[in-house]
């Protein structure tokens, strides 16, 4: 929309539309750049891992010799960590969210907790590692155990679980609660038999996404002292451990090409685990939604 020097108004729609089309094309290219990088990363890792990924790799202990090395202890360590982290963080996170949504009254205290949770979600994971080191490893004298690792990761993902559970609770219609109260139900009956079952799909999805964040975390585990060389499988929550991301970090940091190949193979295993978790989150949500629709 320009006016020339003699004051005549030129609409120039064709030109303006053409410029708009070109710039929209640029926006599109920028958008698919992210997808291109993701595909490049996956293809690169898959290519690098080809020579190393087999059953022997999954079933062997780590080794100084690349062709004998495997990821059994870190794989078990990661699964242990995930189980323990889920046991600690899910009840705690869901209970917090239920309190904040169903019990707490509007006021400065609720505001404070909400702001606090939002800020906790933005604290760098390495800082959680420092907290875990001082609080669980040393102060509570848990040592460099699976339990110390799981407690640290639980605090790390707690804000994510609380926020997603709150969203799931908030999306329920008020009528659901009103009808239960109208029939004389107590608060806990309303929550346990009506609110939580109906919010389950949303809660499950959030929990699985939070756990997939926990399973990929490296820095906090290094801080609390997860070992880099563990030639045994963990037997209890008090055992020392290693985990897949630690093993990947360790192999990647070595200069030899063989170990980079091993790192790529371990990455493939970790990514398959993550994709499986994401997929199960989607399937669970679909299943619950069909159940509710069928009622």
């Amino acid at each position, binding site marked *: 929309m320009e006016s020339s020097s003699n004051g005549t108004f030129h609409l120039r729609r064709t030109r303006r539309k053409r410029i708009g089309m070109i710039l929209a094309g640029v926006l599109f290219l*920028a*958008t698919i750049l992210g997808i291109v990088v993701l595909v490049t*990363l996956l293809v690169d890792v898959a290519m690098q891992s080809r020579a190393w990924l087999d059953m022997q790799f999954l079933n062997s202990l780590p080794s100084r010799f690349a062709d004998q090395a495997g990821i059994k202890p870190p794989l078990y360590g990661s699964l242990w960590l995930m189980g323990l982290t889920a046991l600690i963080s899910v009840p705690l996170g869901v209970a917090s969210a239920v309190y904040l949504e169903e019990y707490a009254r509007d006021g400065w205290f609720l505001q404070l907790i909400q702001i606090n949770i939002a800020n*906790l979600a933005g604290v760098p994971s*390495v800082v959680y590692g420092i907290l875990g080191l001082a609080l669980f490893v040393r102060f509570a004298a848990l040592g460099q155990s699976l339990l110390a690792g799981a407690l640290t990761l639980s605090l790390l993902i707690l804000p994510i679980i609380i926020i997603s559970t709150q969203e799931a609770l908030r999306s329920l219609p008020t009528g659901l609660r009103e009808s239960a*109260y109208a029939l004389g139900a107590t608060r806990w009956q309303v929550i346990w038999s009506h609110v939580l079952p109906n919010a389950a799909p949303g809660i499950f999805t959030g929990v699985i996404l939070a756990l997939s964040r926990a399973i990929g975390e*490296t*820095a906090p585990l290094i801080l609390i002292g997860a070992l880099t060389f563990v030639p045994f499988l963990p037997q209890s929550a008090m055992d020392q451990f290693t985990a897949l991301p630690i093993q*990947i970090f360790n192999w990647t940091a070595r200069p030899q090409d063989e170990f*980079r190949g091993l790192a790529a193979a371990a990455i493939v295993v970790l990514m398959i685990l993550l994709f499986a978790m994401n997929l199960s989150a989607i399937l669970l949500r679909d299943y619950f939604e069909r159940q509710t629709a069928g009622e």
Partner: protein
Amino acid sequence: MSTESPPTSTAPESAAAEDRAAARPADDLTQQVYDSPKELAIKYALGACALVSVFTTLGIAAVLVIESIPFFQEVALTEFFGSAEWTPQFSEKHFGIWALLSGTILVTVISAVVALPIGLASAIYISEYAADWVRRVLKPGLELLAGVPTVVYGYFALTFVTPLLQTFVPGLGVYNALSAGIVVGIMIVPMVASLSEDALQAVPDSLSGAAYALGATKFETVLRVNVPAAFSGIMASFILAVSRAIGETMIVTLAAGASPKMTLDPTQSIQTMTAFIVQVSKGDTPQGTIVYQSIFAVGLVLFLITLAMNIFATRITQRYQEKY
């Protein structure tokens, strides 16, 4: 139970009260519900769980401050904040945070240059242009990108991006700030894209409708009406993403090197605050030494910077949010 009906169903005259009840079911709905001792016990148990998050924050602050005190008894604040030499491993030790801070700043600036334009462009495209089926492909794609563990990005930076850059940039070392910064940028693109898209979606259609009525083209409308209207949300997404980049650890540990120095040259090997913390804790530095204590001091600086940025981002969204 009282014989009166709950206030929410009998008070059509107070629409405001009904609004509040809809917003927070806890407030009016349960006023007349009888709480038995068991009910009260459950309430307080749940409340105790909610307090865990408060204690986490207090715990982080307490640990960082208390554990830094011995460090600051030996290293003067003037040296810590006034020097750019960081040589904890040498016999003559220097602890000038600027050597690490400048590494963090360099990587963060590179990542912001990569991520902010790409993230915003993605947000605009997905929110304003993409057809439904394109959006259904792009959004999960970006979510997957956000779900890739950072150690995997570190592997990618070291074994793919650095060799690729070495073909364009002669003399680029194995460890350099450029590769790490670019990959950190890629990592935070989904965050910028998703938060900015939320902000753009919140702009009411009436604004763009008015622009079209005045004869603006689609691109002019998006650029001059929608984006400015969502400005506060977009700024908040930028700040949160940059704060995330500052706290990122594994990519910089693997790809940016371990040589703390003050430089603006992205082809050099540097060390960030986070990478220093990891370096010390994965080695066998004995507890109680000044080097061991230094990770708490560095952690404190890192925590304060990211906390300030997160609070700032929340403030921006609260204060400058356009009310429609």
